[in-house]
């Protein structure tokens, strides 16, 4: 019985942690797509960049929480440069241009990471209190993983406030749904696109620092995360934030359950689910997906 409770708790928490990390990366990807119709294939590499900045900041002796604050900002600034120099000039062209551009950017960033930090797997050191296992009855779980859940909740809460309760958020939501109307109303769309891209990059960087201590840091860590994020936004509906939340936790749960019970076919189940949803619900779980 104790084993059953312990395994059940593990499955629930593992699902939430995995889904939470997927969510932060996928939301960033979704915001960029929703606001500027750029499918950013370099998003996974920006996630990796965040993790490496976090590793460097912690490695220099600063606290993990400082890394959690600074690394996403650095990735955001990097994103701003990318947007101004590379993405913005391509905006008027068909989406395939930015798709190819960001695909190339992904390899450039991977190479840059390898050049700056090497091939070795890196581990982000955590403060002692996060490096423990918490035990309640027969359930024991790593404290950092639990803290990650609070972190994800905090980020989502902050994002909800930004998008739902501020003028910037209202403009962003409107620009995502009816960009032509917002433009006619005199809103500087260049600024909206730029803001959306930077916000997406900040979220990627934040997810990288959060996930670094969970999954370790290595040059191509973003590739797998990019694929998982795509699965999330396809299932949730392209550009749909509510859909992404639902899809991220659904995938986290399905992947964790499948790994536990039918280990060898876990990923097959996840991709089968995506294929079925694509066929029967092409606009995602909530029918809010946008197509170009």
């Amino acid at each position, binding site marked *: 019985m104790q*084993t059953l409770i*312990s*395994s059940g708790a*593990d*499955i629930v928490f*593992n699902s939430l*942690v*995995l889904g939470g990390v997927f969510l932060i990366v996928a939301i960033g990807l979704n915001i960029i797509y929703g606001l500027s119709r750029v499918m950013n294939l370099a998003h996974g590499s920006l996630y990796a960049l965040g993790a490496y900045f976090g590793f460097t900041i912690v490695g220099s002796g600063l606290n993990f929480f400082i890394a959690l604050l600074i690394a996403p900002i650095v990735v955001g600034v990097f994103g701003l440069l990318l947007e101004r120099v590379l993405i913005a000039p391509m905006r008027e062209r068909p989406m395939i241009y930015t798709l190819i551009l960001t695909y190339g950017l992904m390899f450039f960033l*991977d190479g840059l990471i*390898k050049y700056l930090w*090497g*091939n*070795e*797997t*890196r*581990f982000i050191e955590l403060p002692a209190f996060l*490096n423990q*296992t918490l*035990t309640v009855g027969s359930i*024991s*779980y*790593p404290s*950092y*993983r639990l803290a990650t859940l609070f972190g994800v909740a905090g980020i989502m809460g902050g994002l909800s406030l930004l998008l739902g309760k501020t003028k910037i958020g209202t403009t962003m939501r409107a620009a995502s749904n009816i960009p032509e109307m917002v433009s006619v109303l005199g809103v500087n769309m260049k600024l909206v696109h730029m803001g959306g891209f930077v916000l997406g990059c900040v979220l990627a960087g934040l997810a990288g620092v959060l996930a670094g201590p*969970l*999954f*370790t840091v*290595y*040059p*191509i*860590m973003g590739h*797998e995360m990019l694929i998982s994020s795509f699965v999330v936004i396809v299932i949730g509906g392209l550009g749909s934030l509510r859909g992404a939340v639902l899809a991220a936790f659904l995938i986290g749960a399905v992947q*964790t359950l499948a*790994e*536990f019970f039918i*280990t*060898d076919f*876990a*990923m097959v189940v996840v991709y089968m689910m995506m294929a079925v949803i694509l066929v029967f619900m092409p606009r995602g779980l909530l029918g809010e997906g946008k197509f170009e």
Partner: protein
Amino acid sequence: MKRLFVVALCLLAATLLWTPRFADAEEPIKIGVIVPLSGIAAQGGVELRDGIEMAAKEKKTVLGRPIELIVEDTRVKPDVAVSKAEKLVYKDGCVALIGVFSSGVGLAIAKNIDKLNVPFLTTHVMTTEFYGLHPLVFRSGQLANDQTAVGNVKGILATPDLKNRKYYVLVHDYAWGHDGGERFVALAKENGIEVVNPDFDKAPIKTTDWSTYISKIKASGADGVYIVLITTVIPVFTKQADEFGLFENMRLVSAAAPGVTELEAGGKACYGIFGASCYSWDIDTPAANEWEKKYWEMYKAIPSDAAAHSYVGAMNLFNGIEKAGSTDPMKIADALRGISFDGPYGTVRISAKDNCMRNEAVLTETMAAPENPYGAKVYMKVLRTFTPEELGPPE
């Protein structure tokens, strides 16, 4: 005038006949080095490359010609590796191929060896399928899965803390992992070691979150874990397992030696990993110490098993070409059968029976390192040594 023309013609003919021989003597012997320099095993690939490079610098010439290494990145992908092998042979004119850090990649190249028609010597491929696979295919490097399983089972039976435990088996989902899992399960059964999941778990190579596997291990009732995971991933798994408190009552035995760089990064979470392997810098022999000193001087890196394997493999290959007295593929292959080299982990001999090496090996446990010239904090302490006959397979 006619006489002058004949003399000029003779001089020209003599020049033409002489020049290629002269050029041939100066032309380097090209060796194709196939290693992963990107992807999951990139660090291991760098160490393999460094070991081969070190051997080439030490050997300097083969058949009186300088050695030229041409390095290609496999990205640990069999299809990429095959096209790189084709490029190395057909375009660059390499007379032999060496390296490879994956059984899947090694087998893919081996399947194309008739077409490639050059000797192919692997230094980090553990699948048992390599025994007697092809007259041109050789292994001189990391222990094969059957040898590791024998070493680990002997180690488990001889170590009180490992002996009476129930083992959970977790492997990487590809040729090597499956082979390694099957070998251990079969041998464990023969020797009365209980395995709770004889069909063992197969984790995708790209797994980064091990939490579900760790939960399964916790729920299985096992108190020992046998892993067949790519060396660079071992510290990632142990770090996560440690966070879940898995090792409070459990012991870990690994089919592959963890990479030294990753051990350092993993720190204390990497203590207590048992496993049989060819090499650890704890081996204290004059040859090992001399090699480690040279390696450190060249790369300022902790001497690793991957580098030691590839160094020895390259030395066997270079000496084989020298012994063959030619770059003819079959002559080199004939020369490689039965050849041996005394290096950092004793005498490594390529069996004339099955083209795979036989050598001494060690059982190690990872723990806090004593003071050492490399500044390493974690090391693989040698617990015991196995003779080549103990590990087999019989010849």
